[in-house]
């Protein structure tokens, strides 16, 4: 028996934004006009397609991500959610999250989103300093950010917001101050991402031209430690590398990814991982929005061919995602997820060294990373693997 075979999460990707932020390499495109009706039909078609294949599931969470899904029409969100209810059995405590940018246009739609069925909102606040918001190329200012949080609090049961730190030329002191200022606005959940300079973004070029500095690995580690301290004191410890929550307030949808449970992804560039006929499949939707739409219209979904994931690959993926969680992952879950034996996939010698170095906690039943381990996650995974 495979775990949670009967449960399923649904991710929608909305690949459009008002403008493209210079640090962002997500599948997001600044747009002039979008044919909302056509998109809605395409999403509906894809939903029906998956419902036919995986109809016997219970839906536990829905996530509208982007891009900027707060630019979607609330009517469309409503239609999609009602389709889901038509196609599938729904969990009592269904979580429906929507990512939103805190510009005034979008804030005004919060109420309509709630009425459409959204019960959790994730706000891209990024910073509580106007100058930094400008530098990040954001369309909002601090006043709008605070207003967005206020409205979100009124409209939704749960909300979260994202901050980016380790920003160009930011000092640890300045970040500590800003984070402490932000805490009173939090309610149960926050995501704190250290800035990554991604290739193929304007920041990458500017950084390489030497226009600004970002923390190196030593300062980056320090930033991380300081952040963890503050968040633990505030009762919002990390449950994942960059995600903090009070007990019970974790994003259930994102936990599905980290626990390597089943989800389908719909929309340009969206990915899915789900079991079907005893196989774990991966789906990958065409990333260009126009292509995705044409495919969805003609073949009922916008995905490249689904691929079966080999056992060793399932092990790697499950380990990679599971170790992002503070709790880590149980050996039994790893083995069930992958149909592989832990000892066959892991280099025992390296595991021992990693434990001795104080990076890994391991007790036969569960494997997790210490904070120092989390900081080296990308190195540890290949190090541990055979």
């Amino acid at each position, binding site marked *: 028996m495979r775990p949670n075979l009967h449960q399923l999460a649904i991710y929608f990707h909305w690949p459009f934004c008002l403008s493209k932020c210079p640090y962002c390499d997500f599948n997001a495109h600044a747009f002039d006009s979008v044919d909302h009706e056509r998109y809605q039909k395409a999403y509906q078609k894809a939903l029906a397609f998956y419902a036919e294949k995986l109809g016997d599931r219970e839906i536990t969470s829905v996530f509208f991500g982007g891009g900027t899904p707060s630019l979607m029409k609330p009517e469309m969100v409503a239609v999609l959610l009602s389709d889901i209810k038509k196609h599938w059995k729904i969990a009592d405590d269904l979580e429906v999250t929507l990512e939103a940018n805190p510009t005034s246009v979008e804030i005004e739609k919060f109420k309509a989103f709630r009425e459409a069925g959204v019960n959790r909102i994730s706000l891209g606040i990024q910073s509580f300093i106007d100058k930094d918001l400008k530098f990040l190329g954001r369309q909002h200012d601090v006043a709008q950010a605070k207003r967005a949080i206020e409205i979100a609090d009124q409209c939704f049961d749960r909300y979260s917001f994202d901050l980016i730190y380790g920003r160009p030329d930011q000092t640890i002191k300045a970040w500590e101050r800003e984070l402490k200022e932000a805490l009173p606005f939090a309610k149960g959940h926050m995501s704190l991402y250290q800035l990554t300079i991604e290739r193929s973004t304007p920041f990458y070029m500017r950084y390489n031209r030497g226009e600004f500095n970002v923390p190196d*690995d030593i300062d980056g*580690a320090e930033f991380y430690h300081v952040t963890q301290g503050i968040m633990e004191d505030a009762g919002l410890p990390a449950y994942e*590398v960059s995600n903090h929550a009070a007990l019970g307030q974790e994003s259930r949808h994102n936990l599905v*990814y980290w626990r390597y449970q089943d989800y389908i992804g719909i929309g340009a*560039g*969206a*990915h899915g*991982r789900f079991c079907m006929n005893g196989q774990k499949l991966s789906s990958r939707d065409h990333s260009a929005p126009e292509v995705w739409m044409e495919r969805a219209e003609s073949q009922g979904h916008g995905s490249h061919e689904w691929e079966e994931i080999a056992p060793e690959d399932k092990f790697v993926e499950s380990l990679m995602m599971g170790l992002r969680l503070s709790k880590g992952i149980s050996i039994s879950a790893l083995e069930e997820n992958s149909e592989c034996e832990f000892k066959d996939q892991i280099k025992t010698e390296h595991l021992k060294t990693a434990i001795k170095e104080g990076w890994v906690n391991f007790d036969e039943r569960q494997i997790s990373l210490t904070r120092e381990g989390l900081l*080296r996650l990308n190195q540890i995974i290949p190090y541990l693997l055979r």
Partner: protein
Amino acid sequence: MGMSQNSKTKPINEIRNFAIIAHIDHGKSTLADRLIQQCGGLEEREMQEQVLDNTDIERERGITIKAQTVRLEHTAKDGITYQLNLMDTPGHVDFSYEVSRSLASCEGSILVVDASQGVEAQTLANVYQALDNDHEIIPVINKIDLPAADPEKVRTEIEDVIGLDASDAILASAKTGAGINDLLEAICTRLPPPHEGEADKTTKALLVDSWYDIYLGVVVLVRVIDGYLRKGQKIKFMSNGATREIDRVGMFTPKKVELDILGPGEMGFITASIKDISETNVGDTITDEKKPCETALPGFKPSIPMVFCSFYPADAGEFEKLRESLGKIRLNDASLHYEPESSQALGLGFRCGFLGLLHMEIIQERLEREFDLDLIPTAPSVVYKINMTNNTQVELYNPVDMPDVVKIKSIEEPWIKATILVPDEYLGGLLQLCQDRRGVQVDLTYAGGRAMLIYRLPLNEVVFDFYDRLKSISKGYASFDYELDGYGENDLVKLEIRVNEEPVDALAMIVHRASAEKRGRQMCERLKDLIPRQMFKIAIQAAIGGKIIARENVSALRKDVTAKCYGGDITRKKKLLEKQKKGKAKMRQYGNVEIPQSAFIAALKMGDE
């Protein structure tokens, strides 16, 4: 190949055999083109630039690697139609061996000097070789069409620097054709006919060169001294006693033309169902099987590889392909030596011996281009002679194989005598360079605003980026040529590079004690920048014997974690991991860390900067 033509051979006094010699780029090949064209060897439409440079690399680099021969006819003012056998020779020092072979089969040389450049180092080297072969020399001042041409100055230079009478030098342009007729006339009147050659003597011919042709098998280039070579004749190679029957006799015009016979003084080719060029020793004497001649020709010294380096396939799976490719190149280049070797840092590869640096570069380029191989070359090195305490001597081809120091009495390294011609303003820089490279000045003279430097230098110091430095210091104006000049003892040590206490075999080198520390430090610094930081600290050391002379650390990485990773990113992260894993195949374990092979490769590459 055309139909057989002659059954009679030319009288010896109507034959002229000559080589064209010049510093690189002074216009040898172009001049050969003009001569061929003028004599009607090729029709207008068949003519392409530098017809004698056959290989792609020769064409692209504009250099001649293999000597080429072509038979022309010219009717001189005296009414006689002469047979002219022309040899285009390689200009580069690495191939001076080829030059010497070509010269040995001729009686005269055309010395080409660029009218805008004047005499250069290889001009000198080639002239001396021609004089050693008792050649009559016709100086040709080429490129007179260039605005910067100064034929009179060059004429004086030829007289002052070389000591050759240039009063009747021919002014020519291989580009416009000016002076070509005068040159042809001079070849017929000023160069001597072949010396020896008596038709009634038994067959005696010089094996000038040989190469593999996919249609004909091994083609042997010959110069007949006495007697004849005929189709169907049974011949004997005097060096190894092998006998064969000639199945083809012919000449190049430059097209291959079959003949019935080659007579005294003539040049041409034969084929005799030979499969492997290793059976044909350049410089050998070919004679008649039944009626062999008594004494062999003096022959040539065999070519000896002077520069060594190892080639490793970047993709370990291509080792066999590399072996095959080297084998194919060797079919036509007997001066290439190779044998398999294995390195901890780089895997399986071949230790190769070359005539010189250019030869090495050309072989590498051919392997990469013609055979589509991705190669990792190690730093070039030379052959050391090691005198052991038990009074034996061993030759060291690879620094890795250096015997234990306590068993070594002394180490000898090869020296060269270098000739450098350089405009005055760069002299200081070049003296410094030679000094830094442990050079010993032999001579310094001036001629026409330029200095001629003669230096003795350890070859070891020359294979390591000397030529590039020379060119950059002189902004490209200095020219350089060298000849080997024996072995000499020196205070040489093996410099070892260690990563986490373990030696990296591919980076071992032999250096003079005085420069060991600097070279060691350089290599450590370089590796420090090239080895990616990892979870563990990495120690890099340079050592002589057991003594550490330089060290660097690659500090441990404190943070490497993807901040944001959700559903859609699994695939992306997985790809990264896969890449890392793939990279692992190219990783080498040193203590508790794995070092990507690419770091060592890059360190080696920087060696020739």
